[in-house]
Structure formats: structure tokens, C-alpha cells
């Protein structure tokens, strides 16, 4: 487990206190994710790019260093740097379709 890095402005708190506040919230979200993956297994057809992106992000949860949210969001981001010629939709899907 990584060494806690206190941030400016953040009150001191123990990991037990954090768990007291947020464990149940994280618990139900993890179970919801597991149920979603089970639901996908029961459905027909191939895997779309959004679910592929979600599966690709799962190992990042187990990394030891802080910054998991930023790393997941970056993984799902369009890595290109130039404006595109024209959009074929107004909407974003949540995961860059080119992610392998």
C-alpha cells in the first residue's frame, strides 16, 4: 500500500475514517459493475468499444499509486492533437473508439 500523501487543505483522517464514510458507497458501485458484466455475458452479439474500454480500465484500479481516476480518464481519451475535419455526431460515447 502506498504511503499517504496529505494534501493542502485536506483535514487529517485515517483510512478507517475514510472507509467509514465511503466504503458502502464503493461496495454497491463495485457490485453494480459486476452485475453489469454478468448482464453483458447473458446478452447476444460482440463487444462494443465502450465495454472494451471499461475492461481495459479495470487493471488500473489495482495500481498502487494515487491518480487512478485521471489515468482511467486519460486511457479513454482521444489521444490525437489536431482538430478533425467534421463531426459525424454531436454526442460522445465515453470511450475513444480507437482504443484497442
Amino acid at each position, binding site marked *: 500500500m502506498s504511503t499517504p500523501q496529505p*494534501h493542502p487543505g485536506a*483535514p487529517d*483522517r485515517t483510512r478507517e475514517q475514510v472507509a467509514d464514510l465511503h466504503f458502502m458507497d464503493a461496495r454497491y458501485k463495485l457490485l453494480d459493475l459486476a452485475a453489469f458484466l454478468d448482464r453483458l455475458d447473458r446478452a447476444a452479439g460482440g463487444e462494443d468499444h465502450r465495454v472494451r474500454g471499461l475492461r481495459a480500465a479495470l487493471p488500473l484500479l489495482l495500481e498502487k499509486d494515487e*491518480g487512478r481516476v485521471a489515468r482511467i*480518464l486519460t486511457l479513454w481519451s482521444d489521444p490525437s492533437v489536431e482538430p478533425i475535419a467534421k*463531426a459525424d455526431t454531436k*454526442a460522445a*460515447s465515453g470511450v475513444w473508439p480507437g482504443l484497442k
Partner: protein
Amino acid sequence: MRYIEPHGHMVSRTTDDYQAMALAGCAAICEPAFWAGFDRKSADGFYDYFCQLTQHEPKRAAKYGLPHYSWLCINPKESEDMALAADVLALIPEFLKAPTVLGIGEIGLNKNTRNEMKVLEQHIALAVQYDQMILVHTPHLEDKRKGTRLIMDCLKANGVVKPERVIIDHVEEHTIHEVLDQGFWAGITLYPESKATPVRAIDMIESVSAQRVWLNSACDWGHSDPLSVPKAAQEMRRRGHSAAAIDRLVYGNPVKFLSQSPRFKDPAAQA
């Protein structure tokens, strides 16, 4: 508790929401121009919308004791039509004379297209010409990181824009540091699903110097919560943040940024 809602699309909300926000401690609301959920076919639609933002909505908010301010633009989702964008941009100077208009916004990018970039540049030039502050919308989801960087490059390329007079909204964990490092203000938008939840927002607040950050609900016609700012304040409270730290984030910071416009009046100073 007192707070400012610095980004709420109140034309999409009911009067019950005004009532709930007032009861929760809201002291003022700012409303940037945005996409209506469908593409308007002509500049006439925008003319009516700008009248709604600058004339009708302040009266509706006043019934609940809430000062209402607005920002004007054509949003990036309608910027692909360059002719329409030019017509709408031509309307804006007339409405900048309204006493509750704070600046140009929410401008920015949606899908990071070349036309969106051109209209963004035109909005920035308009803001510079009329000495207006800027409120920036950054793209959604997988387009946000690239779009945020393109927008900041565009703002810096202008050469005249002062970063401290620009708020870049909808930042998340992968963009907030770059925005603050380049001298801009950063807005964290609290949405139930996309953008940031109140819990994640306070995690971000605890990981940066929050002197140039505000929280907003961006409540609109979609899945959103007009009380998300006080809910984030409650999250701070239960984590042990002081009342002064909470007040600084949800009231002091937006007042500090918005007061760069002489039209914005600190509600506490009016009491």
C-alpha cells in the same frame, strides 16, 4: 450556508428549483448560453433566447430573491454552421449592453472540429474587442482532454486574453492540473453520471490549491441536480472541512472571479 450557483441553465428548470435553491442558501445564479437540445434554424431563435436570458429570466429569479446574471454566445454544438454562427455573433454586441450580462460564454468545443475552432476564435476576438470575461465549455467524455488543450492553445494564441479572466469549466481529474497550471480558473461541474460527482469534486479540491476553482451544477434539461453545489458542501462538512473553507469554495471563489465584471454585485455587500 450561502453559495453562488455560477453555472445553471435555469431556462430549463422549474420555479420549484428556484425555490429549492433559495432555501438551500443560494445567493445568486449565473446562466451561460447553451444548446437547447436541438439545433436552432436561424439567428431569430437566438435573438429570442438572448431576450429570455437578459430580460425574462432575471425577473423570474427575482421572485425568489435571487440575482440572475448571464453569459452570451452560440454554443459549440451549433457552431458547425458557420453562416448561422456569423449571424448570431453579430447579435451579441447589442445584448452585451444589458446590465446583467457578465461576458462571453459558454464557448469552447464539442467534437473538436475545425469549424468549432474557427467560431471559438471569433468568440475570443469578440470578448477581447468588448473587454469581456470568458466562460469556457470543454468537450464531453473522451473528447475533453484533447479539446481542453486545443481551447487553452487558442486562448493563449490570441495574445491579449488574461487567463485570470477566463474560467475553463467541466474540468475533471485529467484536466484540472493543466488548466490551473496555465493560470486559468477551473470550474468543476457536478453531474450525477458524467463530469464529476460531489464526492470526486471534493477529492479534486483536496488535491489542488483551490484558490482558482469553483463548483457548479450546470443544471439543465438533462440528468442534473440544481442542488449539487450544497450537496458538495455537505460532503466537505462530513469530511471535517471548516465552515470557512467551505464558504471560501462555494461563495468566496465565485464572487472573486465574477467580481472582475463591474456588473456582478457581491450579494453579501448588498444585504
